[in-house]
């Protein structure tokens, strides 16, 4: 039953993205005209607000439904704020806040950025690398008053935005809040803090990464089976086969650990040490897989894969960019290492085996 529903969600997302966000077509497009019809179709299918209950304006999907959508988004290396809107909706729902039917993003997305809510309920501070802030009408914000966490919804126009973009050219803006009054806000649930948000964001990026890895593996294998050099298909050369097997291994690792983290998140709302292990490991290992995998895929494609014209960069550059969002692999590795050290050697294996 649950599997059937996931299948339907996956099919719906795949159909829309294949029709309106085909990587080949978009790569040739010289403007962003494709983005509007795409967003209309995604919204009509209820995909961007899958993590918002119906009573709060969403389509009331499960956590697993949303991750199935993100897996598809990853497979297309989607250059639109679908993941960000999903995650923003999820954050708003933690605060029992109604979600607007618009493109959204969320802040902060870096572990050390802090946004503060003052006694008047206004927001101050800045968040770096906020994905698609420039293409979003609203931002879901997690802010602290020094004691308690708050969740707030603000209009993007109330904030000052930087111009930066990520490696793939998607907006990744510095967002500055100067006495910004939210449209609405509410206290975060007990125990929910910025680490919880970073862990959830990490799973989001891990799932997209696994999806994009699946695509670069398929593209690379197909190309190796087609491209002829030295009078043989290059996939017949053992050196190339060994590289592709490594790419398969990295892809498998990404798929497995992202799937494990999704499963863990679907079982519990509590971000305990087990959940920390799952989500942090997912971010660390998928980021490592992204770096290894992108390099191998480019090696398989050679010069053509290094061109603007070829779609490979749409995947590899996003794979590399996503590593930086919601805590890099270095950040989470240090945090996970500290956690393991604090628990001590005798409690290490029991933690691993408990998953």
């Amino acid at each position, binding site marked *: 039953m649950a599997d059937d529903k996931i299948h339907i969600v996956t099919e719906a997302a795949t159909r829309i993205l294949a029709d309106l966000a085909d990587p080949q077509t978009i790569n040739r497009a010289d403007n962003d005209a494709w983005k509007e019809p795409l967003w209309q179709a995604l919204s009509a299918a209820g995909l961007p607000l899958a993590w918002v209950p119906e009573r709060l304006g969403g389509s009331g999907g499960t956590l697993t439904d949303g991750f199935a959508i993100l897996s598809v988004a990853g497979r297309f290396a989607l250059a639109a704020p679908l993941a960000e809107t999903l995650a923003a909706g999820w954050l708003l729902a933690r605060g029992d806040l109604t979600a607007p039917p618009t493109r959204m993003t969320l802040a902060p997305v870096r572990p050390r950025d802090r946004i503060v809510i003052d006694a008047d309920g206004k927001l101050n501070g800045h968040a770096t690398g906020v994905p698609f802030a420039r293409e979003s009408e609203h931002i879901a914000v997690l802010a602290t008053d020094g004691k308690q966490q708050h969740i707030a919804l603000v209009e993007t126009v109330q904030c000052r935005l930087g111009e930066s973009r990520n490696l793939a050219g998607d907006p990744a803006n510095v967002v500055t809040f100067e006495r910004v009054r939210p449209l609405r806000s509410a206290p975060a649930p007990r125990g929910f803090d910025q680490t919880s948000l970073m862990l959830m964001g990490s799973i989001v990026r891990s799932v997209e990464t696994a999806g994009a890895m*699946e695509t670069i*593996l*398929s593209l690379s*294998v*197909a190309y*190796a*089976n087609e491209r002829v050099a030295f009078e043989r298909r290059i*996939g*017949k050369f*053992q050196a*190339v*086969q*060994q590289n*592709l*097997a*490594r790419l*398969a*291994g990295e*892809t*498998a*690792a990404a*798929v*497995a*650990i992202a*799937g*494990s983290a*999704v*499963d*863990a998140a679907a079982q519990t709302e509590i971000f305990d040490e087990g959940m920390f*292990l*799952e989500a*942090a*490991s997912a971010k*660390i*290992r998928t980021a*490592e897989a992204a770096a290894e995998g992108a390099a191998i895929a480019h090696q398989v494609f050679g010069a053509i894969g290094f061109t603007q014209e070829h779609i490979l960069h749409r995947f590899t550059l996003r794979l590399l960019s996503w590593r930086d969002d919601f805590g890099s*692999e*270095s950040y*989470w*590795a*240090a*945090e*996970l*290492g*500290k*956690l*393991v*050290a*604090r628990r*001590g*050697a005798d409690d*290490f*294996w029991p933690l*691993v*085996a408990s*998953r």
Partner: protein
Amino acid sequence: MTVDLHFDPIRLPPECAKLREEVRAFLTEEIAAGTFDPHRPDDGEGYNRAFSRRVGAKGWIGMTWPKRYGGHDRSQLERYVVTEEFRVANAPSHLHFVADRQSGPVLLKYAPEHIKQDILPRICRGELCFAIGMSEPGSGSDLFAAKTKAAKIDGGWRINGSKIWTTSAQVADYMLALFRTSPPSKDNRRHGLTQFLVNMKTPGITVNPIYQMTGKAGFNEVVFEDAFVPDDHVLGEIDGASKQATSELAYERSGPERFLDTFYVLLELIRVAGPEPDLRCAEGLGRLVAQLHTLRRMSVSVAGMLQAGQEPVVEGSIVKDLGTVWEQKLPGRVRDLAAFLESEIVNRATLEDQLAYATTIAPKLTIQGGTTEILRGIIARGMGLR
């Protein structure tokens, strides 16, 4: 084409938690009784008949096999728990492990009924050690180049030739071996090999130890000179062993023993680093933990597929490729991370000893049971590249 890799997020079912506690309690008692030292890696590579019998008495050998053959009708996932706890504790399971992992399942599938009745219960009681006779001088990774000959004679087969790099042959009671019963055919070089069950006490078998770079005799040359193997010891189809190999490989390649062989150095690093390691050590440690957790989740997933009756050959090969490369690099990573720790020399003594051991055995990890290159060839084939 789309390459489809399946790693469903299988979780160990609740009955595994109770089993795990039983296993840990048993191992704690054995450690207390001095059976083995969890900090001494060479203990984990030992053969201990008395210990293996106690493991058998617990019902932890042949767990997944039918009760009528002395097994316990338990799941692959329960077996997984026992295997990983034994590895992590560094318990000596060499005597029974190969029989439990791969020889028993082959016998279950291909041996005649009376052989199964005779041998499988003894494996389950921890009484029998098995060796695997595949490699020969001149045919290692290239399994199908095997030349050791089984000639048909009255009532059985006469074996001549030799096997090499055979682990456990010096203590093994039986060997599962591939012998040539016919020449390869023109269109199929895999044709002509047959799988046999060989009693190691058979006259005409000589076991010569081969000393490894560790200084120990870890494997052997096994010479067959007119050794007689009876007809009922043929396993499966005559000349058709190559078709029987794939399921065995899925069992052999994806278990926790494929990434936990040097686990002790990671554990000892955590001990030596203490509760507040420097940032460099913490970051490196965190990566290793994430990589280990990922490997284990992949390996559990394959165990789940085996339990569901699938033959995840590509997925199993991927786990072994990633797992063995990881466990091979682990001593080097741990050495790097320990370099600037300000621990006392006495605190480090165990780690230094373990690193010396792990560094020395590391080269074999990506060779035994299918080299990295062979595994990657299998993965490439699975993706339609060859």
